[in-house]
Each structure stands twice: as C-alpha cells, then as structure tokens.
C-alpha cells in the first residue's frame, strides 16, 4: 500500500522537503453527511494518510433493542438509515419471521417489494443530488432530486402515516393495507420517473466538469472490494455483479425480471452510473410488481401472528439488498419475548472500511467526492 502512495504523491512536492499538515475534517463539516470525522495528513493538497473516526452518533441501538420486545424494535430500525426506513424494516421482519417460522401473504410481499424499490429510487436520486453537491454544484441537482423524493414520500405517508420513520412492516405482513388513492399515484410516479432520470442524465452524465471530477478517482479494484466485504452499488461499480436480490431471491425477487448494472473500473463515475441505471431497473421492477399486486386480494396483508412474538430459542440471519448495500439482521432468541442479541450488519459501516485505500494520493476535494460516492448515512454507521 505504501508503494502505491509513493507513486501517487507528485515527486516535486516531496523534493521540496515540506512537512505534511494535519487537517481535521469533521465531525462538523458541510459534507460529511452527518457527523463523520477524518484526520487527513496532507502534502500540499494531496492526501498522505487518512484516519476515519466514528462514533459521534453512537446510540448503542443493539443494547436498546435487547430491552424491548420484538415488535417494539421496528420503530428503532427506521432510525438506522433514516433515508430509507422501509428497507430497514424489511430484513428485520424477515429475520424474525425466519426465527419464528411465520408465513407472509403474497399481497404483503408485493407491498414490501414496492416499498423497497421506491426506497431505492429515492435513495439513489438523493445520492446523485448530494454527490453533485459535494462536487460544488449549487443545490440544483439536489433540488430536482428532492422534488422527486417528495412524490415518493407522499406515497409512504399515505400508506404508513409517516414520511420518513415509516414503521410500516410487521411480522407476517405489513401494518396497513394500501389506501385507495395509493395505486393511481404510484402509477403516476412510475410513469414519470424515467423522464426524470433522463433529464438528470442529460444534465450531468456527459458534463465535462463532472467527468473530470469523477473519472479515475477513488478506484476500488474488484479483488479489494470483495476482500473488504463492500456491497451494493459500490461493489457492482467495481465490476463484481453480486446482488442479494438475485442470489437469495427473497420476497418476490425470484419472479421478477430485471438486470444488474455493473461498472467497468470501479471509480466514482462508475458508482454514479450504476446508481442511475439501478433507478431505471427499479422502475422496471415496480411496473412488474404493480401487475402482481393487482392480482392479489385486497386486505390479505397479514398472516396470523400472536400479539407478542415469542420465537423459539435459536438464531437467524436475514439480509436484503438495501439501496446502500447488504443490510443484514442477526437475531439470537432465548425463547422469551425479548431478543437475546440483536445485531445489525450495516452496509454503510462496512463499505467505509476501504475509504483510506481509495483516498490515498488524491486531493482534498476528491476525498469529499469519494466519501460521497460510497453513500453512507452516519446514523447507520454509528448505530
């Protein structure tokens, strides 16, 4: 690793014999997406080393959940990654269902997939917006993304009663059936979204400034990506086509027809493109699920589940492809109504591991972009 760094640092700077300066980025910094702190060692503006420091948002959620029963932990999963709370609910209820052997009606599965893919749409739209914000575009792309996100949040609010802290999924189904006005609005969102993605792409994808800032920046080679356990769009940008939706075929994903976008190098530009293409695929999935949803019986959203779930002793690990990567829940039950151990495998946390390797040798401005391109939510990293 040190040899690589030596290659990246321009020789003339080293020849000057200047001393590196330490720059402390964060925890309060405009573009650390929460409270993340990096200790940078700089030669001029080139990164020599980077030390990430976490924990400013640590709530010890795993301990909190041990003191609550299974149902009461669902609102807490919302608060892991507050951007996409629906996909946080999903693996948790899956893990409990696995543990307690609960069946899920088909309509509930359809609704869950709809919510997951909507979450993916809004997360990726926001990602692109905030990536551009990190690059210094004056809020315009973010604003467009937020506008689209509002439409999806309206849907969430309609179905679950809350825009961000949805608390929608339950063991053996979902909390409420979809209201009447949900489907027409969903159809509209699904119809309009491709146009939005097209516009985004027209505005950004071949923009020379964006190309200059993104191409060949923060390359993560595929073997390093696999070794570091990176998942989600970051992994797929590094040419490894691994998608839990295809591999595990949980929920309805076995029946759905969609493609997995894969990058070619693994730089920031690939990560951007992979997400843009995933948005198009999500729209495709939504179109298919809407047809499946129409075939199911309204109201059949919840299987018979006791009021307080008491799974038999044992453990279960369930994982899904959340917009940020592989989100897993590992639960250990001792047969009581409270979990014995409640563990979150957070994609943001693991994806941050190779940050230093990606950043070394780049400029300060690139660090921000690379960090943004991993797409983390600090609430999920620190838990």
């Amino acid at each position, binding site marked *: 690793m040190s040899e690589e760094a030596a290659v990246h640092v321009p020789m003339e700077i080293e020849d000057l014999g200047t001393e590196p300066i330490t720059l402390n980025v964060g925890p309060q910094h405009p573009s650390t997406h929460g409270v993340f702190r990096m200790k940078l060692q700089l030669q001029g503006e080139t990164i020599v080393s980077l030390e990430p420091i976490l924990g400013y948002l640590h709530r010890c959620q795993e301990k909190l959940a041990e003191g609550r029963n299974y149902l009461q932990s669902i609102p807490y999963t919302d608060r892991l990654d507050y951007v996409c709370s629906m996909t946080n609910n999903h693996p948790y209820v899956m893990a409990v269902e696995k543990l307690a052997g609960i069946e899920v009606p088909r309509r509930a599965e359809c609704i869950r997939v709809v919510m997951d893919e909507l979450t993916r749409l809004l997360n990726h739209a926001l990602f692109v917006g905030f990536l551009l914000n990190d690059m210094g575009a004056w809020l315009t792309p973010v604003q467009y993304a937020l*506008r689209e996100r509002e439409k999806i949040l309206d849907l969430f609010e309609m179905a679950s009663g809350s825009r961000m802290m949805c608390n929608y999924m339950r063991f053996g189904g979902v909390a409420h059936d979809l209201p009447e006005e949900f489907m027409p609005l969903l159809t509209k969102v699904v119809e309009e979204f491709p146009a939005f993605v097209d516009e985004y792409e027209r505005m950004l994808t071949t923009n020379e400034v964006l190309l200059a*800032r993104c191409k060949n920046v923060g390359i993560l080679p595929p073997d390093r990506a696999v070794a570091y356990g990176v998942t989600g769009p970051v992994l797929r940008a590094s040419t490894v086509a691994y998608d839990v939706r295809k591999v595990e075929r949980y929920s309805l994903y076995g029946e759905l027809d969609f493609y997995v976008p894969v990058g070619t190098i693994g730089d920031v530009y690939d990560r951007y493109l992979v997400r843009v293409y995933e948005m198009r695929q999500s729209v495709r999935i939504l179109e298919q699920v809407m047809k499946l949803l129409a075939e199911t019986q309204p109201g059949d959203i919840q299987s018979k589940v006791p009021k307080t779930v008491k799974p038999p002793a044992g453990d279960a690990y369930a994982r899904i492809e959340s917009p940020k990567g592989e989100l897993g829940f590992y639960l250990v039950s001792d047969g009581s109504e409270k979990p014995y151990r409640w563990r979150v495998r957070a994609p943001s946390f693991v994806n941050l591991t190779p940050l230093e390797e990606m950043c070394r040798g780049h400029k*300060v401005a690139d660090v921000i972009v690379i960090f943004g391109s991993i797409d983390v939510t600090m609430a999920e990293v620190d838990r």
Partner: protein
Amino acid sequence: MDLLIQGLNKLLGQVWPDWAVVLLAMVIVITLIFVMAPLTFMLLTWVLRKGIGRFADRMGPNRTGLGRFNKERTRQRWPLWGLLQPIADGVKMFTKEDITPDKGDKWLHRIAPVAAIVPAMLVFAVIPFGKNLLGVDLNVGVVYVVAVSSISTLALLIAGWSSNNKYSLLGAMRTAAQMVSYEVPMALSLVVPVLFAGSLSLNQIVQGQASWLGLRWYIFYFPLGTLAFFTYFISALAEVNHTPFDLPEADSEIVAGYVTEYSGMKFALFFMGEFMNQFLVCAFATVLFLGGWQGPGVQLGGVLGYLFSVFWFFLKTFSLYLVMLWIRGTWPRLRVDQLMNFAWKRLVPITLGNVLVSGVAVIVLSLLKK
C-alpha cells in the same frame, strides 16, 4: 464628472471659487458611488436568490415583504416578491456576533474585509454607466481596472492567513494561485478590444462601438472579438471566484475557505465585495465587448437619450449576470490541478494567439483603408 463640473460652474461659478466647485463635484460623485455600490449589491443578492431558485424549481424569497396585523390578529401580507430580503439579510448580519479568532492576527483580520471591498468601490469610478455618465474618464481606464481589481487577491490572502485556520489557509492559497493565473488570460483578452478601439479609455472604447444603430459591438468582430469575449468571460469567472471556479470558498471541501472565521458584518463585507466584483466583471464585459451603453435610441437628445443609454447598459450587464447565475445553477466545480491546467495550458495559449492575430489584423485593415 467634467459635465458635472461645467454644470456646477454655471450654477455657482459666480459665487464659489473654482476649487470649491471641483470639490463639490467630487463629493457628489463619491457619494453617488457609495450609495450605488451597496444598492447594486442588494439588488444582486435578490436577483441571485430568485434566479438560482427558478433554475432549481424553487421560488426564491417570496415572503419578506410588508405586513401588518389586522383587527382579528391575523396577519396581512404584501410579499412584494421578496424584494425586502436583502434588508432582512442586512439586519441579520448586523445582529450576528462578531468573532475574531483568539490566536489569529487580529489587526490583519480586521483589515482584510475592508481591503476586499475598497478595490471594488474604486472600479465603480471609471465604469461608464451611460452616455457621459461616468465618475472619471481616465485615459488608461482598462489598465486601471485590471490593476485595482487585482488588489482584492491580497485581501483574500490576508483574510486566509490571519484567521489561523487550516481551511482558511488552504482557501487563501487556492485564491492566490487561481487569481494570479487567471489574471494573465484576462488581461490578454482585454488587449483585443483595446487594439480594435485604439484607446485605453473606457469611454472611447464604448464610442468606438457606436455605428450600425449602436450594434457595432466588438463581440461581433468574428472570430477575434468573439473569442476574446469568451476567454475574458471564463477567466473573469475565475477571477471573481464564481462557479465552476469557486474553489477558494468551496463550501463542501474547505468549509468556506478564507471566510471560514468571519461572521457578522465582516463576512457581509466580503460578500459585498464579491458581489460587486461579479457585477463589475459583467459591466466591464459590457463596456468592452457588448457596446456599453450603446443601443437604439441613445442618439436622442435631452434626458431621453441619457435614460436610454443607462437602460441599455444595465440590461446588458444584468443579462450577463443572469448567464453567470445560469452557470452557477448548473455546473459542479473543478479541482485545483484541473483549474491550473485549464488556465496555463488552454487559456493562455489561446489568448496569446488571439492577441497576435488581432494585432496583425488591425494593422492590415488600417493599411487597406489607406
């Protein structure tokens, strides 16, 4: 100002001595500039908020207007399109706590905002805002503008150094490098209209673009004038730290660069200097390339001609400013090394070649005319 002195002489010449009349004229002009500069600044911030908002599908300020409580204690509002937003900003800035870093260089820290705004004010003196409406008709106006506006680099450097903050220092270093590099292509692009007009006086440059119903602008001197306009505009964007070259104050990377440690009115002064510089860059481009106050109707006698000239000048300047906003609302920012590469490897050769070709062209044309 000459006109003003003549007018005052007619009025007061019998009573007052000559030097008093000149002094009075100076005071009037300086007061006008001091009033006009902040007014422009306030208008610009409003235009910026509204314009960027519209580009981003937002409204911009739409509430800051007049209002009162009526009898039922419900509020009545006359939002006035948020036109009073700059005043609200000003009030906010005035009431903010003024912070001076404990370990910074306190005197330099205080001087820097002043040093940032004075050059911008000085430039106002030579810009011809309309037919014969300019503070001083310097015969080396172009050189004066370039010289004075580059002083603000120093102010930013002082600000970054005196703050004792690493972000500020990085910002200041970026500023110094960027402004020094981009001054070269900027000055070189200015040479082209000067060559066309054969004068360094701004007034004469404007008058040189007079015929063809006031449409004989240097930007239409294809390709030389057009190219010079574009190179000037690009390097001017960098000169005033505007997107996509706003690295010195890149908020997502180095927080706010050299203004990180500034608050309250000191920050407002930096802000003001920056906005006035942006306005002046547009005004300067208007004067040099877009015919200044020239336009249909300025030949009319009396007040009408003056009004037309002022109208045309501000229309052109604000259109250019809108283009700057447009860029600001669309593009991301370049990186340090890319910025420098762009200046030295692209812009400087292009402008140098342009100057050379323009010089030859002017000589050849004058020979042909003979």
